[in-house]
């Protein structure tokens, strides 16, 4: 089992299956109102986080967004502490101060995620500057949606990262929609790869439903960054199956054709990767991850809420 799970497909399947199942459990639990926090689900987008993070080491530093469950889990973030955080419990990764939108796990260099679009990008660039100053071998990977590229902060950050030749991979998860606004109503010109190249940053677009190619190209980009060749940019086409926020579907809002969503669900990346594995290996991975998910929920249920005086804790460090 150990040996076979070393194949990229097996590693990807394990990671993607965990993300899918954690989020399906969130959907199942949501009506109980135990998760008193907005959730931005990654179902449909798991492949991007899983494929990129498979190439990262523990010391590599990851910045992401409020749609961060997939990233946190793919980087190896603690699952029980994530679940407890969603429950607002004291054993959560931020003792209930963060909720779903600000997951953090410093033990694997999963930096806390931000809910203000594009705001973490320059922080990621600053972390890369620090790594360069510290002559570290580690790199930074910065995830954001295509909506973040509307913001001036993205442009300023791309320019500075290129100017200083920093060790950072920018990963744009292009799921077409900023809430319900389509990218074609927001983006002028020849697209994000061209914009990236204009800043002197080599860029590549990877279509959806090609998870193993995504894995391979992410590996190549990360290797280049690690060699000290400066920033790289990946535009990963993907698709969010659920509503922008909350556990439900959003077909009622009619902002995207049902057929488009149906085709994406039909072409499920999790199934594509799973089909690459022998059935017994797949089942073995699934059983192990099911247990992790169940244990995490049990952990969250058993944990307590923070004491009143914790409201004042951590306003300042030290």
């Amino acid at each position, binding site marked *: 089992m150990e040996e076979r799970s070393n194949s990229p497909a097996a590693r990807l399947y394990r990671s993607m299956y965990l993300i899918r199942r954690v989020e399906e459990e969130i959907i199942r639990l949501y009506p109980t109102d135990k998760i008193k926090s907005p959730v931005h689900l990654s179902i449909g987008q798991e492949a991007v986080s899983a494929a990129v993070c498979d190439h990262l080491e523990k010391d590599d530093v990851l910045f992401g967004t409020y749609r961060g469950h997939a990233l946190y889990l793919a980087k190896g973030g603690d699952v029980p502490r994530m679940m407890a955080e969603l429950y607002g419990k004291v054993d959560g990764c931020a003792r209930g101060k963060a909720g779903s939108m600000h997951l953090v796990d410093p033990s694997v260099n999963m*930096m806390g995620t931000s809910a203000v679009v594009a705001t*973490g990008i320059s922080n990621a660039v600053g972390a890369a500057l620090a790594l360069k100053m510290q002559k570290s071998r580690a790199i930074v990977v910065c995830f954001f949606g295509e909506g973040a590229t509307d913001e001036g902060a993205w442009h300023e950050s791309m320019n*500075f990262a290129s100017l200083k030749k920093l060790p950072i991979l920018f990963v744009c998860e292009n799921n077409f929609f900023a809430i319900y606004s389509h990218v074609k109503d927001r983006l002028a010109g020849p697209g994000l790869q061209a914009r990236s190249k204009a800043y002197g940053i080599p860029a590549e677009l990877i279509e959806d439903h090609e998870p193993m190619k995504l894995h391979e190209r992410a590996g190549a980009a990360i290797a280049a960054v690690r060699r000290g060749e400066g920033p790289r940019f990946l535009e990963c086409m993907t698709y969010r199956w659920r509503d922008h926020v909350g556990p439900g579907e959003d077909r009622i809002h009619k902002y995207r054709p049902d057929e488009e969503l149906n085709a994406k669900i039909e072409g499920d990346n999790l199934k594509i990767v799973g089909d690459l594995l022998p059935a017994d290996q797949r089942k073995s991975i699934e059983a192990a991850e099911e247990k992790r998910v169940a244990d995490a929920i049990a952990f969250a249920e058993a944990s307590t809420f923070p004491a009143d005086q914790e409201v004042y804790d951590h306003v300042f460090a030290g």
Partner: protein
Amino acid sequence: MSSRADNRTLTYGEAVFEATRSEMARDSRVFVMGQGVDDARGMFGTTLGLHKEFGPERSFDVPLAEDAMTGVGIGAALMGMRPIQVHQRMDFVLLCMNQIVNMASKMSYMFAGAHKVPLVIRAIIGRSWGQGAQHSQAFHSYFMHIPGLRVVAPTTPHDAKGCLIQAIRDDNPVIMIEHRMLHNVKGVVPPESYEIPYGKARVLSPGKDITIVGISHMALECVRAKHLLEDAGIDAEVIDPVSLSPLDISTIAASVERTGRLLVVDTGWLSCGASSEILSETFERIGERRHFVAKRLGYLPTPCPTTKILENLYYPSPQSIAQATYRLVRGENATAWQPGKVDSAEVAEFRGPF
């Protein structure tokens, strides 16, 4: 320490430079970033030549991208570095607000101590010789509003050095407010390193008739007003808060409890300002047991006019501070009194351009 060292005088700008340089020498994690920090002017001398002494990685120019550059500083701080960011004019710090308010000030809390942001932002308030509406604004009250952020506004060269050293060594984000009119003011500055603690106001000059609280450059103007008031037989106590957040309301309230009168003179507008905060906190502290009269002075409720003749009306002056103090002490019906003349040399002699 020799007595000569005891009496060594530096300008405020030199004190800021000395604090920065000594901390960079002490701690290799400290670096300076900002537009023009490594140019021939060296941010009014406060960063002059640091790039030569410590290398261009530790004192460098940045693109005109205040939003992302603040984020870059925060990101570097998250990874254990100790950046100092410098803004020649505080007006441009408005472009940094998202990063300061949504990120730097919240990370410790939001992530329950998993992150800390040891970042110093030096913001310089401009004045005089035609700075106009967009090169003269003072936004310290905006930052005082935000939990998780420390705000210091030292007036003396001594406190400028100690506040900056304290800020650099702090694990939290700190905004240090400098007034451009203070950069050339001289004062005694000990050569060794020392820290000025947060939340400790300084009584610049004791007195018994009224408590005058002056913020940043206005503290200097208040001391001048105090001397004018000696003519009228009024003995004013002048207090410099030094640290605006946290605020040392104990020292101010104890003074007001003695004098029964409070005048707050801000380097800024009055509405929702630092003066409002000082007055209301003082009232909450002693209002039940001590009746006192109070007034606030600050910038006129207009944008700053460029032409000198109007600009003179815009700022409180030693004369207007003395006049307001006189009315507060003697009452509205007192005999009219005209304060003498005094020069605020740092304002009169300033020729900028910045």
